[in-house]
Protein backbone atom coordinates (compact mmCIF):
# COMPACT_ATOMS: atom_id res chain seq x y z
CA UNK A 1 0.00 0.00 0.00
CA UNK A 2 2.90 2.35 0.68
CA UNK A 3 3.61 2.38 -3.05
CA UNK A 4 0.25 4.02 -3.70
CA UNK A 5 0.97 7.01 -1.45
CA UNK A 6 2.75 9.09 -4.14
CA UNK A 7 -0.09 8.49 -6.58
CA UNK A 8 -2.68 9.35 -3.95
CA UNK A 9 -0.80 12.54 -3.12
CA UNK A 10 -1.27 13.60 -6.74
CA UNK A 11 -4.96 12.55 -6.72
CA UNK A 12 -4.00 10.12 -9.48
CA UNK A 13 -5.88 7.11 -8.12
CA UNK A 14 -9.47 6.22 -8.83
CA UNK A 15 -11.96 3.39 -8.41
CA UNK A 16 -11.12 0.38 -6.23
CA UNK A 17 -7.49 1.39 -5.79
CA UNK A 18 -8.57 4.77 -4.41
CA UNK A 19 -11.15 3.25 -2.09
CA UNK A 20 -8.73 0.58 -0.92
CA UNK A 21 -5.96 3.02 -0.17
CA UNK A 22 -8.26 5.38 1.71
CA UNK A 23 -9.51 2.51 3.83
CA UNK A 24 -5.91 1.53 4.51
CA UNK A 25 -4.97 5.11 5.43
CA UNK A 26 -7.46 5.09 8.23
CA UNK A 27 -5.42 2.43 10.00
CA UNK A 28 -1.83 3.03 8.87
CA UNK A 29 0.14 5.84 10.47
CA UNK A 30 3.19 5.08 8.35
CA UNK A 31 1.33 5.65 5.09
CA UNK A 32 -0.31 8.77 6.51
CA UNK A 33 3.09 10.21 7.44
CA UNK A 34 4.68 9.50 4.08
CA UNK A 35 1.59 10.86 2.34
CA UNK A 36 2.10 14.18 4.13
CA UNK A 37 5.69 14.29 2.86
CA UNK A 38 4.58 13.61 -0.73
CA UNK A 39 1.87 16.25 -0.49
CA UNK A 40 4.40 18.76 0.75
CA UNK A 41 6.67 17.93 -2.17
CA UNK A 42 3.85 18.35 -4.68
CA UNK A 43 2.77 21.65 -3.15
CA UNK A 44 6.30 22.97 -3.55
CA UNK A 45 5.96 22.58 -7.31
CA UNK A 46 3.23 25.23 -7.38
CA UNK A 47 4.50 28.73 -7.95
CA UNK A 48 3.22 31.60 -5.85
CA UNK A 49 1.39 34.49 -7.46
CA UNK A 50 -0.39 37.64 -6.43
CA UNK A 51 -3.82 36.94 -5.03
CA UNK A 52 -6.73 38.70 -6.72
CA UNK A 53 -8.45 41.55 -4.87
CA UNK A 54 -11.75 40.73 -6.58
CA UNK A 55 -11.63 37.17 -5.37
CA UNK A 56 -10.98 38.29 -1.81
CA UNK A 57 -13.99 40.61 -2.00
CA UNK A 58 -16.15 37.65 -3.02
CA UNK A 59 -14.75 35.45 -0.28
CA UNK A 60 -15.30 38.18 2.29
CA UNK A 61 -18.90 38.62 1.15
CA UNK A 62 -19.50 34.88 1.28
CA UNK A 63 -18.22 34.44 4.81
CA UNK A 64 -20.11 37.53 5.98
CA UNK A 65 -23.31 36.06 4.58
CA UNK A 66 -22.58 32.79 6.32
CA UNK A 67 -21.89 34.37 9.67
CA UNK A 68 -25.00 36.52 9.42
CA UNK A 69 -26.92 33.25 9.26
CA UNK A 70 -25.48 32.08 12.56
CA UNK A 71 -23.02 29.45 11.49
CA UNK A 72 -21.86 26.87 14.00
CA UNK A 73 -18.27 25.72 13.70
CA UNK A 74 -17.59 22.01 13.40
CA UNK A 75 -15.50 20.67 16.25
CA UNK A 76 -11.79 20.98 15.48
CA UNK A 77 -10.39 17.59 14.55
CA UNK A 78 -8.08 16.70 11.69
CA UNK A 79 -9.09 13.07 11.47
CA UNK A 80 -12.63 13.49 12.59
CA UNK A 81 -15.34 11.03 11.81
CA UNK A 82 -16.81 12.39 8.58
CA UNK A 83 -20.28 11.85 9.89
CA UNK A 84 -19.92 13.15 13.40
CA UNK A 85 -21.15 16.55 12.36
CA UNK A 86 -23.19 15.48 9.40
CA UNK A 87 -25.22 13.12 11.54
CA UNK A 88 -26.36 16.09 13.57
CA UNK A 89 -27.57 18.00 10.55
CA UNK A 90 -31.21 17.24 10.85
CA UNK A 91 -31.29 18.48 14.39
CA UNK A 92 -28.86 21.35 14.04
CA UNK A 93 -30.46 24.52 12.81
CA UNK A 94 -27.21 26.37 12.30
CA UNK A 95 -24.79 24.18 10.46
CA UNK A 96 -22.92 25.34 7.46
CA UNK A 97 -22.67 23.70 4.10
CA UNK A 98 -20.29 25.28 1.62
CA UNK A 99 -20.28 24.48 -2.05
CA UNK A 100 -18.62 25.34 -5.34
CA UNK A 101 -21.34 25.11 -7.88
CA UNK A 102 -24.92 26.28 -7.79
CA UNK A 103 -26.77 25.00 -10.79
CA UNK A 104 -30.35 24.27 -11.67
CA UNK A 105 -30.72 20.55 -11.94
CA UNK A 106 -31.75 19.42 -15.39
CA UNK A 107 -35.36 18.49 -15.83
CA UNK A 108 -37.08 17.03 -18.81
CA UNK A 109 -35.02 18.47 -21.66
CA UNK A 110 -34.71 15.06 -23.20
CA UNK A 111 -36.48 12.88 -20.71
CA UNK A 112 -39.97 13.05 -19.29
CA UNK A 113 -40.36 12.69 -15.55
CA UNK A 114 -41.31 9.08 -16.14
CA UNK A 115 -38.24 8.67 -18.32
CA UNK A 116 -36.00 10.06 -15.59
CA UNK A 117 -37.51 7.68 -13.07
CA UNK A 118 -36.98 4.76 -15.44
CA UNK A 119 -33.39 5.83 -16.13
CA UNK A 120 -32.76 6.15 -12.41
CA UNK A 121 -34.09 2.66 -11.80
CA UNK A 122 -31.84 1.23 -14.50
CA UNK A 123 -28.84 3.18 -13.22
CA UNK A 124 -29.41 1.90 -9.69
CA UNK A 125 -28.97 -1.65 -10.96
CA UNK A 126 -25.69 -0.91 -12.71
CA UNK A 127 -22.42 -2.11 -11.18
CA UNK A 128 -20.85 0.49 -8.94
CA UNK A 129 -24.00 2.59 -8.61
CA UNK A 130 -25.04 3.98 -5.24
CA UNK A 131 -28.55 4.84 -4.19
CA UNK A 132 -30.54 5.66 -1.10
CA UNK A 133 -33.49 7.47 0.40
CA UNK A 134 -33.77 10.83 2.10
CA UNK A 135 -35.89 10.11 5.16
CA UNK A 136 -37.99 12.48 7.25
CA UNK A 137 -39.77 10.87 10.18
CA UNK A 138 -39.12 7.49 8.56
CA UNK A 139 -40.86 8.60 5.37
CA UNK A 140 -38.95 8.72 2.09
CA UNK A 141 -39.12 12.25 0.74
CA UNK A 142 -36.68 11.69 -2.12
CA UNK A 143 -34.46 9.04 -3.62
CA UNK A 144 -30.96 9.60 -5.01
CA UNK A 145 -29.11 7.42 -7.50
CA UNK A 146 -25.55 8.00 -8.68
CA UNK A 147 -24.14 5.77 -11.42
CA UNK A 148 -20.44 4.99 -11.56
CA UNK A 149 -20.07 7.18 -14.67
CA UNK A 150 -21.34 10.25 -12.79
CA UNK A 151 -24.98 10.30 -13.91
CA UNK A 152 -27.09 11.33 -10.96
CA UNK A 153 -30.83 11.25 -10.40
CA UNK A 154 -33.06 12.79 -7.74
CA UNK A 155 -36.57 11.41 -7.47
CA UNK A 156 -38.78 13.29 -4.98
CA UNK A 157 -41.83 11.60 -3.53
CA UNK A 158 -45.23 13.09 -2.74
CA UNK A 159 -44.15 13.29 0.89
CA UNK A 160 -41.71 16.10 0.12
CA UNK A 161 -43.56 19.25 1.14
CA UNK A 162 -43.97 22.06 -1.38
CA UNK A 163 -42.13 25.22 -0.37
CA UNK A 164 -43.02 28.87 -0.68
CA UNK A 165 -42.04 30.14 -4.18
CA UNK A 166 -39.32 32.26 -2.58
CA UNK A 167 -37.59 29.09 -1.41
CA UNK A 168 -36.01 26.09 -3.08
CA UNK A 169 -34.74 22.67 -2.23
CA UNK A 170 -31.03 22.19 -2.86
CA UNK A 171 -29.05 18.98 -3.21
CA UNK A 172 -25.52 18.67 -1.78
CA UNK A 173 -22.86 16.03 -2.29
CA UNK A 174 -20.52 15.16 0.57
CA UNK A 175 -17.22 13.92 -0.77
CA UNK A 176 -14.62 11.72 0.83
CA UNK A 177 -12.84 14.61 2.53
CA UNK A 178 -15.94 15.78 4.39
CA UNK A 179 -16.47 18.65 1.98
CA UNK A 180 -20.06 19.48 1.13
CA UNK A 181 -20.54 20.69 -2.43
CA UNK A 182 -23.71 21.84 -4.12
CA UNK A 183 -25.00 19.48 -6.79
CA UNK A 184 -27.79 21.85 -7.80
CA UNK A 185 -31.15 23.38 -6.91
CA UNK A 186 -34.41 21.51 -7.25
CA UNK A 187 -37.00 24.28 -7.04
CA UNK A 188 -39.81 24.71 -4.48
CA UNK A 189 -41.86 21.79 -5.77
CA UNK A 190 -39.26 19.30 -7.02
CA UNK A 191 -39.89 16.79 -9.73
CA UNK A 192 -37.55 14.07 -10.98
CA UNK A 193 -34.25 15.63 -12.04
CA UNK A 194 -30.78 14.69 -13.14
CA UNK A 195 -27.37 15.91 -12.11
CA UNK A 196 -23.76 15.06 -12.82
CA UNK A 197 -21.10 14.25 -10.28
CA UNK A 198 -17.68 12.66 -10.62
CA UNK A 199 -15.51 11.66 -7.72
CA UNK A 200 -15.84 9.93 -4.43
CA UNK A 201 -19.12 10.36 -2.56
CA UNK A 202 -19.71 9.75 1.11
CA UNK A 203 -23.22 11.12 1.32
CA UNK A 204 -25.86 13.57 0.21
CA UNK A 205 -27.79 16.32 1.95
CA UNK A 206 -31.06 18.02 1.06
CA UNK A 207 -31.64 21.55 2.33
CA UNK A 208 -34.12 24.40 2.03
CA UNK A 209 -32.66 27.62 0.63
CA UNK A 210 -33.61 30.94 -0.88
CA UNK A 211 -34.90 30.73 -4.45
CA UNK A 212 -32.06 30.31 -6.90
CA UNK A 213 -29.92 28.39 -4.46
CA UNK A 214 -26.88 29.37 -2.44
CA UNK A 215 -23.17 28.71 -2.50
CA UNK A 216 -23.07 28.29 1.25
CA UNK A 217 -26.02 27.14 3.29
CA UNK A 218 -27.00 28.31 6.74
CA UNK A 219 -28.14 24.78 7.35
CA UNK A 220 -31.91 24.44 7.01
CA UNK A 221 -31.46 20.73 6.51
CA UNK A 222 -34.29 18.50 5.39
CA UNK A 223 -32.42 15.20 5.45
CA UNK A 224 -28.97 13.66 5.18
CA UNK A 225 -28.24 10.43 3.37
CA UNK A 226 -25.16 8.48 4.33
CA UNK A 227 -26.41 4.93 4.02
CA UNK A 228 -26.24 3.51 0.52
Amino acid sequence: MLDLAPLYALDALEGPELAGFEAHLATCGECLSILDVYRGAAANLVHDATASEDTWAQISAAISDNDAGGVAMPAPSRRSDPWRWVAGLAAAAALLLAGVLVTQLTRGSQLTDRGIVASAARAADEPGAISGDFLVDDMTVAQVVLASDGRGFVIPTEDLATLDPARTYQLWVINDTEDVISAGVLGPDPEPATFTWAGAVSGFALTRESAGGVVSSAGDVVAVLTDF
Partner: protein
Amino acid sequence: MALTLVSADDIRLSPRGIQALVTDQRSDEAHLVQGVVDRDEAALESIYRAYGGAVKSLARRVLSDSTLAEDVVQDVFVTFWNSPGKFDATRGSLRTYLLTIAHRRAVDVVRSEVARTRREENTPPPGPGLDLESEIWQRSQSEIVRNAVAQLGEDERRAISLAYFSGMTYVEVAKTLEEPEGTVKSRIRSGMRKLSDVLGEVAP
Protein backbone atom coordinates in the same frame (compact mmCIF):
# COMPACT_ATOMS: atom_id res chain seq x y z
CA MET B 1 -0.58 40.14 11.24
CA ALA B 2 1.09 39.61 7.88
CA LEU B 3 2.37 36.22 6.87
CA THR B 4 5.80 36.39 5.25
CA LEU B 5 6.54 33.79 2.64
CA VAL B 6 9.95 32.19 2.50
CA SER B 7 11.47 33.49 -0.69
CA ALA B 8 13.77 31.83 -3.18
CA ASP B 9 16.70 33.83 -1.81
CA ASP B 10 15.98 32.69 1.71
CA ILE B 11 16.15 29.09 0.57
CA ARG B 12 19.87 29.51 -0.07
CA LEU B 13 20.41 29.64 3.67
CA SER B 14 22.00 26.82 5.61
CA PRO B 15 19.79 23.91 6.71
CA ARG B 16 19.66 25.44 10.19
CA GLY B 17 18.63 28.77 8.69
CA ILE B 18 15.96 27.10 6.60
CA GLN B 19 14.63 25.32 9.65
CA ALA B 20 14.51 28.60 11.57
CA LEU B 21 12.54 30.23 8.77
CA VAL B 22 10.17 27.33 8.54
CA THR B 23 9.68 27.39 12.30
CA ASP B 24 8.98 31.13 12.20
CA GLN B 25 6.53 30.64 9.37
CA ARG B 26 4.72 27.85 11.21
CA SER B 27 4.48 30.11 14.25
CA ASP B 28 2.92 32.87 12.13
CA GLU B 29 0.58 30.34 10.59
CA ALA B 30 -0.52 29.02 13.97
CA HIS B 31 -1.34 32.57 15.03
CA LEU B 32 -3.35 33.21 11.90
CA VAL B 33 -5.16 29.90 12.07
CA GLN B 34 -6.14 30.68 15.65
CA GLY B 35 -7.42 34.01 14.34
CA VAL B 36 -9.66 32.20 11.89
CA VAL B 37 -10.88 29.92 14.67
CA ASP B 38 -11.70 33.11 16.59
CA ARG B 39 -13.64 34.40 13.55
CA ASP B 40 -11.12 37.13 12.74
CA GLU B 41 -11.65 37.91 9.08
CA ALA B 42 -8.35 39.84 8.94
CA ALA B 43 -6.54 36.60 9.74
CA LEU B 44 -8.21 34.84 6.85
CA GLU B 45 -7.36 37.78 4.60
CA SER B 46 -3.68 37.48 5.54
CA ILE B 47 -3.74 33.80 4.74
CA TYR B 48 -5.51 34.50 1.47
CA ARG B 49 -2.96 37.14 0.50
CA ALA B 50 -0.13 34.72 1.28
CA TYR B 51 -1.52 31.66 -0.45
CA GLY B 52 -4.49 32.68 -2.59
CA GLY B 53 -2.29 33.23 -5.61
CA ALA B 54 -0.77 29.76 -5.37
CA VAL B 55 -4.20 28.21 -4.91
CA LYS B 56 -5.48 30.03 -7.99
CA SER B 57 -2.37 29.08 -9.93
CA LEU B 58 -2.85 25.39 -9.21
CA ALA B 59 -6.59 25.42 -9.85
CA ARG B 60 -6.13 27.33 -13.09
CA ARG B 61 -3.52 24.87 -14.25
CA VAL B 62 -5.64 21.82 -13.51
CA LEU B 63 -8.90 23.23 -14.84
CA SER B 64 -7.67 25.26 -17.83
CA ASP B 65 -10.58 27.56 -17.04
CA SER B 66 -10.23 30.78 -15.09
CA THR B 67 -13.87 30.95 -14.01
CA LEU B 68 -13.87 27.42 -12.63
CA ALA B 69 -10.55 28.14 -10.95
CA GLU B 70 -12.03 31.20 -9.23
CA ASP B 71 -14.84 29.00 -7.92
CA VAL B 72 -12.28 26.61 -6.48
CA VAL B 73 -10.31 29.43 -4.82
CA GLN B 74 -13.42 30.81 -3.17
CA ASP B 75 -14.49 27.39 -2.06
CA VAL B 76 -11.10 26.58 -0.55
CA PHE B 77 -11.02 29.70 1.60
CA VAL B 78 -14.70 29.63 2.57
CA THR B 79 -14.26 25.99 3.54
CA PHE B 80 -11.20 26.84 5.61
CA TRP B 81 -13.12 29.68 7.29
CA ASN B 82 -15.87 27.25 8.17
CA SER B 83 -13.61 24.45 9.38
CA PRO B 84 -10.17 25.71 10.42
CA GLY B 85 -9.94 22.89 12.94
CA LYS B 86 -9.40 20.40 10.12
CA PHE B 87 -5.95 21.85 9.58
CA ASP B 88 -3.35 19.96 11.61
CA ALA B 89 -0.03 21.81 11.74
CA THR B 90 1.77 18.65 12.78
CA ARG B 91 1.05 17.15 9.38
CA GLY B 92 2.42 19.93 7.22
CA SER B 93 2.26 23.59 6.35
CA LEU B 94 -0.91 25.58 5.88
CA ARG B 95 0.13 26.22 2.28
CA THR B 96 0.34 22.50 1.60
CA TYR B 97 -3.01 21.95 3.30
CA LEU B 98 -4.77 24.60 1.23
CA LEU B 99 -3.18 23.38 -1.99
CA THR B 100 -4.18 19.82 -1.17
CA ILE B 101 -7.80 20.91 -0.80
CA ALA B 102 -7.59 22.98 -3.95
CA HIS B 103 -6.15 20.14 -5.98
CA ARG B 104 -8.79 17.72 -4.78
CA ARG B 105 -11.56 20.17 -5.59
CA ALA B 106 -10.12 20.96 -8.99
CA VAL B 107 -9.76 17.27 -9.79
CA ASP B 108 -13.35 16.64 -8.70
CA VAL B 109 -14.48 19.35 -11.09
CA VAL B 110 -12.22 18.35 -13.94
CA ARG B 111 -13.40 14.77 -13.79
CA SER B 112 -17.02 15.79 -13.94
CA GLU B 113 -18.58 15.33 -17.31
CA VAL B 114 -19.51 18.97 -17.81
CA ALA B 115 -16.08 20.30 -17.03
CA ARG B 116 -14.42 17.65 -19.11
CA THR B 117 -16.45 18.75 -22.14
CA ARG B 118 -15.70 22.38 -21.42
CA ARG B 119 -12.00 21.75 -21.13
CA GLU B 120 -11.91 19.77 -24.33
CA GLU B 121 -13.59 22.67 -26.10
CA ASN B 122 -11.13 25.19 -24.69
CA THR B 123 -7.85 23.39 -24.87
CA PRO B 124 -6.27 20.60 -26.87
CA PRO B 125 -5.65 17.43 -24.88
CA PRO B 126 -2.10 17.22 -23.60
CA GLY B 127 -0.09 14.66 -25.47
CA PRO B 128 3.44 13.41 -25.75
CA GLY B 129 4.34 16.24 -28.08
CA LEU B 130 3.10 19.01 -25.78
CA ASP B 131 5.89 20.56 -23.77
CA LEU B 132 3.61 21.29 -20.85
CA GLU B 133 5.94 20.19 -18.14
CA SER B 134 8.92 22.28 -19.16
CA GLU B 135 6.84 25.43 -18.74
CA ILE B 136 5.76 24.33 -15.30
CA TRP B 137 9.21 23.45 -14.13
CA GLN B 138 10.64 26.71 -15.42
CA ARG B 139 8.07 28.64 -13.43
CA SER B 140 9.13 27.03 -10.19
CA GLN B 141 10.37 29.92 -8.13
CA SER B 142 13.01 28.65 -5.84
CA GLU B 143 16.41 27.30 -6.61
CA ILE B 144 15.86 24.32 -4.35
CA VAL B 145 12.73 23.38 -6.31
CA ARG B 146 14.48 23.74 -9.64
CA ASN B 147 17.35 21.61 -8.39
CA ALA B 148 14.99 18.94 -7.14
CA VAL B 149 13.15 18.88 -10.44
CA ALA B 150 16.44 18.69 -12.31
CA GLN B 151 17.08 15.35 -10.63
CA LEU B 152 14.05 13.84 -12.34
CA GLY B 153 14.22 12.00 -15.59
CA GLU B 154 12.18 13.44 -18.44
CA ASP B 155 9.72 10.53 -18.26
CA GLU B 156 9.25 11.10 -14.54
CA ARG B 157 8.67 14.83 -15.01
CA ARG B 158 6.16 14.23 -17.76
CA ALA B 159 4.17 11.66 -15.80
CA ILE B 160 4.07 13.74 -12.61
CA SER B 161 3.19 16.85 -14.54
CA LEU B 162 0.23 15.28 -16.29
CA ALA B 163 -1.05 13.74 -13.07
CA TYR B 164 -0.67 16.80 -10.87
CA PHE B 165 -1.11 19.75 -13.19
CA SER B 166 -3.60 18.22 -15.60
CA GLY B 167 -5.59 16.35 -12.97
CA MET B 168 -5.22 12.99 -14.69
CA THR B 169 -5.37 9.61 -13.05
CA TYR B 170 -2.32 7.47 -13.67
CA VAL B 171 -4.46 5.40 -16.05
CA GLU B 172 -5.21 8.54 -18.07
CA VAL B 173 -1.54 9.49 -18.00
CA ALA B 174 -0.67 6.05 -19.37
CA LYS B 175 -3.16 6.46 -22.21
CA THR B 176 -1.91 9.95 -22.99
CA LEU B 177 1.70 8.87 -23.06
CA GLU B 178 0.85 5.55 -24.72
CA GLU B 179 2.78 3.72 -22.06
CA PRO B 180 1.81 0.70 -19.92
CA GLU B 181 0.02 1.64 -16.71
CA GLY B 182 2.61 -0.13 -14.60
CA THR B 183 5.37 1.87 -16.20
CA VAL B 184 3.62 5.14 -15.47
CA LYS B 185 2.98 4.13 -11.87
CA SER B 186 6.65 3.34 -11.42
CA ARG B 187 7.73 6.66 -12.92
CA ILE B 188 5.40 8.64 -10.70
CA ARG B 189 6.58 6.73 -7.64
CA SER B 190 10.26 7.11 -8.38
CA GLY B 191 9.89 10.77 -9.32
CA MET B 192 7.87 11.63 -6.24
CA ARG B 193 10.39 9.85 -4.02
CA LYS B 194 13.17 11.97 -5.49
CA LEU B 195 11.15 15.15 -5.02
CA SER B 196 10.12 14.29 -1.50
CA ASP B 197 13.72 13.64 -0.49
CA VAL B 198 14.42 17.32 -1.15
CA LEU B 199 11.08 19.09 -0.98
CA GLY B 200 8.99 17.06 1.39
CA GLU B 201 9.81 19.05 4.48
CA VAL B 202 10.85 22.43 3.12
CA ALA B 203 8.63 25.39 2.52
CA PRO B 204 8.89 26.97 -0.96
